[in-house]
């Protein structure tokens, strides 16, 4: 399971392939990829905490929201330049998330999922009630500074961000730390019984997850140019993030990316044929069937297919 040269070659090929896309595909497709990139970032973030350690978060938009709102408020209300507000937003997500969720990390299993769901709901209600002059209340904020203009630039920016986050996460998870985090997901007591401080490990997983969520969330609002609490702290958004990670393959780095691209393109490609509510019905239905068929995700199915082909060839 160590690092091999072909791992890096594959990453390089993946990156090169991605960066070639603007030459091949129409701009509309690039726009779709941009959303897929952001979803991939959120799914990787979710997976760093939940996919690895098994602490399933149903309130991930809570973290994304801290990052998004911090930079939105700083740039919109205090005219802080984006270069400063985004790092601050990331820091705020890590610190804020830690303060609030630290006590929650001692809660296990389904209760952890529920408390994170409650956090998200609380944040949703508080954002609207407390200082609406800052948060924009229910309506949110619009006219935020955007980082790029045009599909191609947006594509390069989001792809670079997604690839660097994915690559860093992958490297980190390849180390013994990654092994230890996955071990927590399999048997938390046995990790403690191996002399490792589980609380500290969970904290690291959480901080890494918050870092990615905060960074993704902050850049995302500056891509969208607006922020709306109703779309952000929404159980449908949670659903999309979790399903992307799971459909792709939780506990891996490529899985969430694969899942994010699959879901985003599924939804976009249904649009010309089924513009209305049918689209979401099919989208959800496909997700449900895929998940029920193989909870380990597309990456596992693909691996299985490869193994079968190899067996057939041998």
């Amino acid at each position, binding site marked *: 399971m160590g690092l091999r040269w072909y791992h890096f070659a594959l990453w390089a090929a993946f990156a090169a392939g991605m960066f070639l896309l603007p030459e091949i595909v129409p701009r509309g497709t690039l*726009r779709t990829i941009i959303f897929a990139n952001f979803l991939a970032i959120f799914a990787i973030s979710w997976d760093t905490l939940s996919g690895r350690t098994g602490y399933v978060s149903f309130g991930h938009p809570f973290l994304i929201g801290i990052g998004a709102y911090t930079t939105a408020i700083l740039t919109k209300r205090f005219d802080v330049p984006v270069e400063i507000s985004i790092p601050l937003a990331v820091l705020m997500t890590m610190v804020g998330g830690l303060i609030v969720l630290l006590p929650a990390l001692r809660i296990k299993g389904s209760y952890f999922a529920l408390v994170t769901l409650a956090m998200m709901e609380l944040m949703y209600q508080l954002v609207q009630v407390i200082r609406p002059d800052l948060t924009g209340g*229910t309506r949110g904020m619009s006219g935020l500074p955007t980082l790029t203009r045009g599909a191609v630039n947006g594509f390069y920016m989001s792809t670079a961000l997604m690839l660097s986050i994915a690559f860093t996460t992958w490297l980190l998870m390849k180390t013994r730390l990654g092994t230890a985090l996955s071990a927590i997901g399999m048997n938390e007591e046995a990790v403690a019984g191996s002399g490792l401080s589980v609380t500290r490990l969970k904290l690291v997983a959480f901080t890494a997850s918050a870092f990615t969520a905060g960074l993704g969330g902050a850049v995302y609002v500056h891509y*969208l140019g607006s922020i709306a609490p109703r779309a952000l702290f929404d159980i449908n958004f949670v659903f999309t993030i979790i399903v992307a990670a799971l459909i792709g393959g939780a506990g891996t780095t490529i899985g969430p990316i694969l899942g994010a691209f699959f879901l985003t393109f599924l939804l976009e490609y249904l649009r010309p044929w089924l513009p209305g509510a049918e689209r*979401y019905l099919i989208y959800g239905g496909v997700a449900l069937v895929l998940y029920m068929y193989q909870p380990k995700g597309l990456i596992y199915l693909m691996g299985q297919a490869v193994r079968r082909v190899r067996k057939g060839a041998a």
Partner: protein
Amino acid sequence: MTLRKLLLSTALVGVASAASAEIKVGFIGSLSSDTGLSTLRGAEMAIEELNAAGGVMGEQIVLVTADTQEDVTEGVKAYEYLAETEEVDFVISGSIDDVSLGWLPRMQEYQIPTLDTWTSYIGIIDMVVEDPEGMAPYFMNIASDEALATLYINFGADVLKAKMGFESVVVLAEDTAFGEAITGLVTEGLAPVAGIEVKEVITYDIGTVDFAPIFSKAESTGADFIYQVSSVNSQVISSQYVKLQVPMAMTGVNVSALGLEYWEDTGGAGGGISTLSPVPSVGFALDPVSQKFVDDYQAKYDSRPKMPHFNGFNAYYGLKQAMAAAEEAGGFKDVAAWSSAMLKQDLKLEKDGKLWLRYGFWDYDTVEPVTNRTYPHNALFDLEAPYDFAQPSMVVIQWQEDGTVGVVYPFEYANSEFVLPSWVK
């Protein structure tokens, strides 16, 4: 492996969307709400009529749709889809406020001529004031909410105070930016202008299940009537008002009461509710041209909404005006030319020899005399009787307990009278 599949399928879509010589109109809005459907169908009917008459500049118009699900992010994706995959020439929008705000940065980027038919958010008009160049392709053919609220204060003075004799009010406002804005206008306008004392402002959460404690609180203030400000889930508060038979009059803004389905959707638990509405509203007497539009509409569609909401009219007339502007400007490509041609569009509809409805836009310089500000690219409206410049920015409608609905204010447009629900003594 997936990458290749992905490339293959994108190539297919690319081929499918390679446009032939035609004018492409994109609809953005919810495809499953009455609001969204009103705009969509208004646009469809206008396109049908234009195509039957030979199209625009010799080309046929085609309509593509992008659903927003009333979700901001989906709205951004939808606009991008229309702009980049469908490469539309013109966008007609039935989006709600937040969704429009979400895709506006995209519109500024792509510079596609766009007409909003539902949102009345004054902040967008302010954007036109601040950035006339970037917002040149944008038009809103509904009176902005500030104009709506300003005329509404007159209703307070002329009806609530003068006719009903109400001296004091308790405001029940939802906890949204809209609620806050209207509440501000009411407390700063209604009280001083109409001479009605504001006893208390109660703000409620839009997820509220049970309004009983809130109504009790309102009753205990001893005010003469309740002023309701409710755009989200507004049927809940109004139907509980009816179910609880709250012994006070209630009026204000109730967005759900704007459609003809209100009666059916509330199962009749909506009598006595009154609300302001942009025009033409349900219960609004129509001029012959608009009446024909409604008749054709009802002949064509048999699902809800049975009667287009105000934005359906806006879409129908607005789309025709956008196409006329394109004829003048030689298409949609030269945005500046199209924008100034659009600004000059002016459609006057008369009823019984009186100016009844007017579809046109405020220019950059004209100052509206009552509010003393400009409304560039916003629909023309009139805030003073006898409404000979344009139609009033809004009317007040009231649902009676027998299920009929009519306009109660302004008097020039009224066809019924403001009454109290039967259980209010």
